[in-house]
């Protein structure tokens, strides 16, 4: 992490204080101050930039000065000089207030990098640090505007402290002690620090962000994407490849709002975005759009999933394509909205009254979010069913180098609309094809007028039916239709170079940690097999064979054992969960240790 600003901005101080608070936590760390050559360079110029870099981790820091993955830039100059150091996809937090035309000009920016697309490869957060600090100052007697603005380095420090969960008391104590004789300064520094900290927490602006290690890279053209953008683009791709216009209806909620923000920018793809009055409405809007022949998608997180459940049940009996994105966050209830967790698997699997199975797709990497969106579209459209995509805060906010796919290689998705009667007696909306999928006839098609509803329907005709056998049949057909998707998805791949006894099987964002842990284990000649599920319902056909061929099965999960439960129930194997519920991702080193104990 790197603080950069004008030499007058107090970057060294911020850096040192952060380092101190970090050291208290027992983290290993290496710092690297980076002063400007001149003692007093003119404000806002490139050579006046002062920086301070900190590298910290829980274990064995190997390189003293890796590329920083977080940069705090207090002005355009600091951004310009320090950006090249930042790793692709890193986080850039800028003090928006300094990005005036004059300052931009001074360092040769022709357009404002916050507004043009030049920072697209990074995760940028623009925060009006000076404005906020100034406000904080207004409430303190005897603090001038200037003094207040000068405290902005403490704001930045507070914000970063929040992001990394550093303790506040260490810094507060230091401020109290250091400025004990300068009442106004003490107060404004303290206020600025807390303002930064609270800003992070209150506005839900920042997720905690972690570096994802890039795997070995195949040749091709790369760019950085985070999971949110990749997912949004995947939905657009699904729309393009199916020819179905995209309707994205959503109610804002951290961290899923990013999808709404991103998609609302792409109206030239015919994307319709609606900010609904709540999550229930959003789900219904998506479903209404689906009835109209659009790709109806709704996205949410945590509490929103609960609210959508009734509508997902309706979609499942309507048998219409629809996608529900769940960017999981730490629960239960409001929980810790900016922290990651993956504890909604059973909620999306079973969280509806009655029997209404729904396919679930879960990306493993930020880039994988793109593929998951297309795959969800494919399944939804082919099988006429709602499909869940389970992402999480960590995937959504993390970025990684991503091999840009060729559009032609993306699957083509045939909506296969029905345009004429499918039976001698006219149109039968519940007459199925060999996939058990029903016809999709959209309003506007002459002669195929029909009504669908949530009451049980007669096989074939779709008319309301209270017939007992019919209900049983329809219940089983709906289930069978979803089960059969297993024939149409890739087999579960196992990576087991050494013939291991232990299988580590995961889902979702634990992928990186599992792969890295396996690399480490194999590094000391440990034997471990790994596999990763991206289809959670149904499971790939060979899942049973895979899991049963290992004497030990370990399932690392960011919950208390949800996939573990599904595997145990389905395959009667004594799968063990390595569970972590801290709002944090699992780390490779930690998992390495867990694996070691089981070898």
């Amino acid at each position, binding site marked *: 992490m790197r603080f950069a600003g004008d030499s007058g901005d107090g970057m060294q101080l911020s850096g040192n204080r952060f380092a101190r608070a970090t050291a208290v936590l027992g983290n290993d760390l290496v710092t690297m101050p980076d002063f400007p050559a001149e003692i007093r360079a003119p404000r806002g110029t490139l050579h006046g930039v002062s920086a301070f870099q900190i590298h910290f981790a829980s274990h064995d820091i190997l390189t003293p000065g890796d590329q920083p993955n977080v940069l705090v830039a207090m002005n355009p100059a600091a951004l310009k000089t320090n950006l090249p150091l930042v790793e692709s996809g890193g986080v850039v937090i800028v003090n928006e207030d300094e990005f005036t035309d004059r300052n931009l000009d001074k360092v040769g920016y022709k357009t404002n990098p916050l507004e043009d697309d030049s920072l697209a490869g990074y995760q940028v957060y623009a925060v009006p640090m000076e404005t906020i600090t100034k406000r904080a100052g207004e409430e303190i007697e005897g603090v001038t505007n200037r003094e207040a603005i000068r405290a902005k380095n403490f704001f930045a420090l507070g914000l970063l402290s929040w992001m990394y969960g550093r303790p506040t008391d260490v810094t507060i104590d230091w401020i109290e002690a250091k400025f004990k004789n300068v009442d106004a300064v003490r107060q404004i520094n303290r206020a600025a620090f807390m303002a930064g900290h609270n800003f992070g927490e209150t506005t839900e602006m920042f997720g905690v962000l972690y570096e994802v290690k890039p795997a070995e890279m195949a040749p091709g053209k*790369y760019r950085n994407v985070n999971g949110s953008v990749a997912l949004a683009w995947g939905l657009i791709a699904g729309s393009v490849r199916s020819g179905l216009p995209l309707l994205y209806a959503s109610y804002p909620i951290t961290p899923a709002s990013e999808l709404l923000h991103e998609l609302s920018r792409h109206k030239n793809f015919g994307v319709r975005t609606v900010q609904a009055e709540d999550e229930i409405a959003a789900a219904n809007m998506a479903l209404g759009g689906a009835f109209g022949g659009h790709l109806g998608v709704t996205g949410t997180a945590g509490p929103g999933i609960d609210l959508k459940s009734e509508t997902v049940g309706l979609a499942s009996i309507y048998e219409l394509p629809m996608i529900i994105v769940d960017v999981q966050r730490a629960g239960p209830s409001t929980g810790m909205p900016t922290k990651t967790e993956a504890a909604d698997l059973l909620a999306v699997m079973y969280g509806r009254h009655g029997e209404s199975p729904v396919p679930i797709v879960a990306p493993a990497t930020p880039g994988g979010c793109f593929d998951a969106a297309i795959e969800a579209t494919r399944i939804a459209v082919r099988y006429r069913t709602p499909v869940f995509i389970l992402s999480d805060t960590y995937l959504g906010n993390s970025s990684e180098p991503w091999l840009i796919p060729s559009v032609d290689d993306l699957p083509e998705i045939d909506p296969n609309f029905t345009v004429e009667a499918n039976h001698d007696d006219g149109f039968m909306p519940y007459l199925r094809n060999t996939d058990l999928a029903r016809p999709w006839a959209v309003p506007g098609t002459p002669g195929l007028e029909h009504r669908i509803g949530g009451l049980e329907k007669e096989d074939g005709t779709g008319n309301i039916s209270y017939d007992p056998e019919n209900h049983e049949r329809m219940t089983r057909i709906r289930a069978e239709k979803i089960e059969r998707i297993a024939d149409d998805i890739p087999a579960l791949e196992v990576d087991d170079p050494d013939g291991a006894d232990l299988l580590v099987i995961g889902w979702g964002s634990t992928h990186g940690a599992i792969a890295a842990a396996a690399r480490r284990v194999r590094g000391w000649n440990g034997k471990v097999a790994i596999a990763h599920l991206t289809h959670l319902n149904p499971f790939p056909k060979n899942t049973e064979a895979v899991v049963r061929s290992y004497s030990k099965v370990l399932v690392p999960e960011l919950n208390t054992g949800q996939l573990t439960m599904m595997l145990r129930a389905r395959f009667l194997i004594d799968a063990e969960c390595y569970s972590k519920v801290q709002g944090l991702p699992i780390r490779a080193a930690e998992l390495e240790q867990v694996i070691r104990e089981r070898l």
Partner: protein
Amino acid sequence: MATAEFTKQDFTSNQEPRWCPGCGDYAILASVQSVMPDLGVAPHDTVFVAGIGCAGRFAYYMDTYGMHGIHGRAPALATGLAVSRPDLFVWVVAGDGDALSIGGNHLIHALRRNVPIKILLFNNQIYGLTKGQYSPTSEVGKITKSTPFGALDHPFNPLALALGAEATFVARTIDVDRKHLTQTLKQAAAHPGAAIIEIYQNCNVFNDGAFDALTDKGTKDTNQIRLEHGQAIRFGVEQENGVVQNTDGSLSIVAVDDVGEDHLLKHDAHLADPSLAFALANLAARPTGPTPIGVFRAIERPVYGQAIDDQIASARDKLGDGDLATLLNSGDAWDVE
């Protein structure tokens, strides 16, 4: 397709209605089926979206496209459809419980957004399908299954609520008055944005006679205040009564002879300010005495679906049609060999 091609039969599905005999829903169904051919939209371009309740069954009886949704969510379901398919003619049918109790929020948001949907609110002042609990339009003191000692909740006035929610078209009519119902439907159909029509509907099993004052031969002429845009508001067997405005914004009913014709309030449904329509909605708290029916308000405001389309068109104008490869390759990229 030309209007003349369609008949009532074309809008009548093959499902036999399953309401109780004598239910007001039959009359409404018959009127709607009859009027549809006159509206110039083909059955296959028409969609009825219904909520849950006796009223919700309506969708099954129209030979159009239809969705029977879940309880209370029909306006949202219809919004999704109407904004993605502005070419369709989208209707919503909902009971008073469906629209005003569980679905109240979707209703008011659809109205403020001015989504192009026509909402038929079947107000029977009772929960029919669940066999007779009171609804948000039932009167205080009503004895029902869930209120053996009388309901305590002050009811909504659905039209006042709609006006408070920025509705652009607000009307009221009566199940059995086919002519008035038909006229009102036509006006709603012609309205470019969201239209809500409250239809007083008799539930003869659980709340029989709730609207007798407005439907009984003996009393209906005395009690129906028929609003006509541009006309002075008067009513009564011989048009002997009228409505005047008081200095405190409220309205009163007077004998025309007492005030003189010129002092009667003239109805103007096109006022930008909803205050007059609101005062009219509040003239009768309950339909037990003189009660206005007809179109209270009909004003123009940008239509939500259209506005979305316009944004898409303008984005395409400015940026060109979206190209997926360009999007994926936008921003910083690098090659790995």
